[in-house]
């Protein structure tokens, strides 16, 4: 079980009345922010709420408007520069970590010793000693001579933290640190953070997925539209309450679940197993049903999704589609059988970012928009794209614009359009709201619900219990590769479900 870090005794940084205006728009409006020495703090808010602007002001990249009061470690400062912030001990670990894959762990950690424009002799012994000392402070053992690229993401994150310690960081910002970690890796990271906190180094988690982080933090600062919503103790804070604070909307707590048990079964899964991924999974998915599949990261949800989509082959078990047994040898067969899969990694796997919205939409159905000549028929393509843009209410400029110009929520709609164009019977949605603002999520789920109403069978994979609870008709709980429970959202409270999943 994760313990909560101690409440702060002294303030590490104190910022008052911080504003920043870009082109007449208030990116930050009179925000106060403070972190105690050795405190673990959460900075929460939707994309565009001003989180990154605030960090950039604290690290001296941006200068705030006049009237701001800034204190770093007890010292009031009229102005902060990046050099000053670094010297004071403020470090930021961005999500991409900014490490060097071809270099050794030691070089990555003690990279600071190699900076400067004037060439100096590299002292490998001193560099290794520095790296080792930083790892010792974290109570972590890593092979100093291993090439960084051979390490899993979680260990690279430790390397990034150790690098910050080498430059004597006393306050470390971590941008979405748990986004790509499994549960055990997250636990290991949190153990490192606890060690840091005990040694007096403050850590600020910047995230909008806070389930694990909430438990270790003492306080959470919530920003919305550039304004401070408030600073709250995390004791008693739930994800759903935090969501309300971040969006300013009270999401009606009415669960959308309906009784679908009378509907015909579309997909029947019996005793499906794949070694090391999932075991003995059985469930049925009905027409017009939204079946939630939740559990912690690493529970085997995505792996199960891949197997149902024919991307991996199960070792044992049977799939029935509309009553007939099917064996999927590839995802092409799955598509032909009427199964569609929306990947959790929308940026890399779901969309071809530089290509146009139109091209992305027809990508999965190129055969349908081919004319008699065997060449792509522009008019069929245009009709299809227009149909889906209207159907899913995608907000776009021109269908010819690159997908990368769209917001997360609208990109997700394009991915949906791409798969709906294949006219599937079963739609697997893997974490459809990752990177989508809380506010835009409601729109996505309205579409999901409408699709179910038209008879589509939907498997909704999500690690956010609230999301599954609000939007699914039934919920399966997966842990350690097995289905360990089934819940009816109408009869189970969010709190009870959260307790079961995060136990």
């Amino acid at each position, binding site marked *: 079980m994760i313990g909560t870090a101690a409440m702060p005794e002294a303030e590490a940084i104190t910022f008052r009345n911080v504003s920043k205006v870009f082109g007449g728009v208030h990116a930050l409006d009179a925000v106060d922010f403070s972190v105690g020495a050795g405190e673990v703090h959460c900075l929460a808010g939707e994309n565009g709420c001003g989180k990154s602007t605030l960090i950039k002001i604290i690290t001296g990249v941006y200068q705030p408007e006049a009237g701001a009061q800034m204190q770093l470690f007890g010292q009031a400062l009229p102005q902060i520069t990046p050099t000053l912030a670094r010297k004071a001990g403020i470090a930021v670990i961005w999500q991409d970590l900014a490490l060097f894959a*071809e270099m050794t762990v030691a070089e990555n950690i003690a990279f600071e010793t*190699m900076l400067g424009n004037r060439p100096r002799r590299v002292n490998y012994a001193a560099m290794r000693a520095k790296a080792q000392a930083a790892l010792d402070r974290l109570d972590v053992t890593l092979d100093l001579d291993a090439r960084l690229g051979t390490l899993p993401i979680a260990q690279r994150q430790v390397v990034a933290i150790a690098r910050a310690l080498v430059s004597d960081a006393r306050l470390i910002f971590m941008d979405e640190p748990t986004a790509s970690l499994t549960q055990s890796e997250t636990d290991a990271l949190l153990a490192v953070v606890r060690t840091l906190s005990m040694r007096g180094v403050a850590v600020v988690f910047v995230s909008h997925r806070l389930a694990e982080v909430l438990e270790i933090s003492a306080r959470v600062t919530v920003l919305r539209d550039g304004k401070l919503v408030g600073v709250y103790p995390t004791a008693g804070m739930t994800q759903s309450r935090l969501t309300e604070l971040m969006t300013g909307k009270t999401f009606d707590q009415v669960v959308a679940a309906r009784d679908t048990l009378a509907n015909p079964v579309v997909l029947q899964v019996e005793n499906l197993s794949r070694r090391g991924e999932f075991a003995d999974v059985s469930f049925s998915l009905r027409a017009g049903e939204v079946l939630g599949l939740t559990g912690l990261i690493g529970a085997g949800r995505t792996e199960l999704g891949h197997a149902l989509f024919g991307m*991996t082959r199960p070792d044992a078990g049977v799939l029935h589609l509309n009553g007939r047994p099917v064996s999927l040898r590839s995802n092409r067969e799955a598509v032909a059988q009427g199964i569609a899969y929306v990947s959790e990694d929308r940026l890399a796997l779901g969309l071809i970012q530089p290509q146009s919205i139109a091209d992305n939409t027809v990508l999965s159905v190129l055969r349908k928009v081919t004319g008699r000549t065997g060449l792509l028929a522009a008019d069929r393509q245009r009709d299809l794209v227009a149909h889906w843009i209207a159907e899913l209410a995608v907000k776009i400029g021109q269908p010819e614009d690159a997908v990368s110009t769209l917001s997360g929520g609208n990109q997700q709609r394009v991915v949906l359009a791409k798969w709906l164009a294949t006219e599937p019977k079963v739609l697997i949605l893997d974490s459809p709201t990752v990177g989508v603002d809380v506010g835009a999520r409601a729109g996505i789920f309205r579409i999901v619900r409408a699709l179910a109403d038209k008879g589509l069978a939907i498997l909704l994979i999500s690690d956010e219990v609230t999301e599954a609870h609000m939007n699914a008709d039934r919920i399966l709980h997966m842990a350690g590769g097995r289905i360990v429970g089934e819940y009816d959202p109408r009869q189970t409270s969010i709190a009870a479900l959260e307790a079961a999943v995060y136990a």
Partner: protein
Amino acid sequence: MRNFLRAYPTEAKLLAVLILICAVLALTSDSFATLGNLTSLLNNNAVNVIWAVGLLVVLIAGGIDISFAVAASVVQYLCVYAFAAIGGGNWGIGLLFAASIGAGLGLINAFLIHQFRIISIVVTISTFNAFFGLLMFFSSGRFLYNLPSWWSQRVILWEHQSPDGTWSEITLPVAVMAVAMASTWALIRHTTTGRQLYAFGDNAEGARRAGISIGLMQAIAFGWCGAMAGIGGLMQAHITKEVVPNALVGRELDVLAAVVLGGARLGGGRGSVLGCFLGVALVAVTQNGLNLLGVSPYAFKMVVGVIILLAISTSNIDLAQILAPKRKGRE
């Protein structure tokens, strides 16, 4: 030994292949493993190694340079006229002049790449054409033979007569090669600047955020490559005793292939001086062996092409992964 295998897997594999080929050649041809043959291999390939270590620095920094061989020709021409103008010169002046002009040409590449944010392959293909065009225009394609005597006279550093009466010797280009290798090694392994070059080639954005000066990195990489190109050009003219404007065109690809063969990564961040030497050596030994075995010279390029393909495609296969027992889970 274990550390060497771990830090330089490509180099270790290459070394094993080179030893194997040498062993086969020593057994099948009685003229391969002679002192005379091995020293002449060294003398004839010294210039390639000088160019290779220069290009290595650019590859490590994540760039590529197509223009250096033509730049070497430009340096040769300018050298001939400059030495004539100052009434002769000597090796000291010659090396300094060739390295400076070469570095200057390299800095033109660096400036264009950094200032206008154009990728290095496009810039250096352009400067390749520009340098070559200017050279042909001003030289009208004329060969130059009026080299000062210090430049065209062979400098023998060591010689030895075998019992059968044949002479073996080590000449000046080999010593220059050794210095080029040692200084490049010192730069990339043992200076902070060298490690910054690796970091920049590995993750340019990460390097920029860490506070590394990107412009300086480009200048050092292309400047170093240019200086080595100039020195290599000086040595090449020393060997051939003439300056021919189009003699070096095409050599850049041979050198590039050898450097990549030696484990340098085209994306940046990886490569070693030892690998450069081994890469050049493998190609040279193979050609030499085919020659001694009486294979038609027309087949050389084909065989060398196949070797490079084999070496590069197998270097992506991790033997440990194939031999390890199948583990659970994906991959």
